């Protein structure tokens, strides 16, 4: 342990334009973004819960009729595993296990993210075909406000992963690249955290 403790996190240190400090500062900025995103999700969750009354179903499909446990379980498994594989990529960077190992774990994460999105797209297609469209009832509007919002975030994460893989392939594991991957890791783990809320409130709460 050093005697001089360098402030971590949100504190901006004047005159210390060190690479390490910059990474810590950009990470803190990303934390601020994620927490404001958390509030958006929080309000979407609140809206969804207020739309769980019989009046809000408007004679349309209810959560019990609409949601299926196996589909939600597979989506959950894909996303939870992807958060672990991203952790493995972060460890490979932290302990210099080589570029190919980092890229391999990121590729596995990407594949699991795509599997998640495919499962979700299949679920939405099925719902829309059943006539469970957003304009059918207040409940469905709230559902299609909340769950696809998370899906859009995952799509953004997938695109970001592809970009990072291209960058790694071109430039190797540079300082800026690992700093970007550190932020992407936060984003990815955060999306899995939001998904815990979605499968608990929407799917399990709806089916129980």
């Amino acid at each position, binding site marked *: 342990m050093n005697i001089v403790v360098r402030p*971590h*996190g*949100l*504190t901006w240190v004047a005159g210390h334009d060190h690479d390490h400090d910059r990474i810590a500062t950009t990470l*803190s900025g990303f*934390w*601020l973004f994620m*927490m*404001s995103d*958390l*509030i958006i999700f*929080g*309000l979407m*969750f*609140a*809206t969804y*819960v*207020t739309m769980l*009354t019989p009046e809000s179903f408007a004679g349309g499909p209810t959560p019990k009729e609409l949601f299926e*446990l196996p589909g*939600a*379980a597979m989506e*959950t498994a894909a996303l*939870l595993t992807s*958060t*672990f594989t991203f*952790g*493995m990529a972060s*460890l490979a960077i*932290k*302990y210099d296990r080589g570029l190919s190992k980092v890229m391999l774990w990121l590729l596995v994460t990407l594949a699991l993210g795509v599997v998640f999105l495919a499962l979700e797209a299949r679920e939405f297609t099925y719902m829309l075909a059943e006539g469970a469209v957003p304009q059918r009832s207040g409940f469905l509007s709230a559902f299609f406000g909340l769950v696809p919002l998370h899906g859009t975030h995952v799509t953004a994460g997938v695109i970001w992963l592809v970009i990072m893989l291209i960058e790694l392939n071109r430039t190797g594991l540079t300082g800026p690249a690992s700093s970007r991957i550190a932020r992407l890791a*936060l984003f990815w*783990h*955060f999306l*899995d*955290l939001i998904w*815990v*809320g979605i*499968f*608990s*409130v929407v799917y*399990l*709460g709806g*089916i*129980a």
Partner: protein
Amino acid sequence: MSAPKTRSREQAYRHDLRGYQTGFFLAALLTIIPFALVASGTFSTIATMWVIGVLGLVQIVVHVRYFLHVDLSRQRREELYLMLFSAALVTLMIAGMLWMLFNQHTRMM
């Protein structure tokens, strides 16, 4: 390259790896239990809802601790405060909104 230094780095790696493994194991467990409860329908709806809610909150803490690496250490204090503040805001907004709207709902009926 001294031998003790490499060993301590290897130990640090294994320590971090174990962190992710523990997190993954706990998260999987906390996911499987509520899914199994809902699938089997052992308990009443209300009891199942309580279990889902409590295990969901515990799982969020597990994710924050093992994947986002925010704990009670001094180094992560600012992220922790930021997160607790955001959680407080979200709780106020959700609880306030639900309270108000369900109250309105009862009055309108």
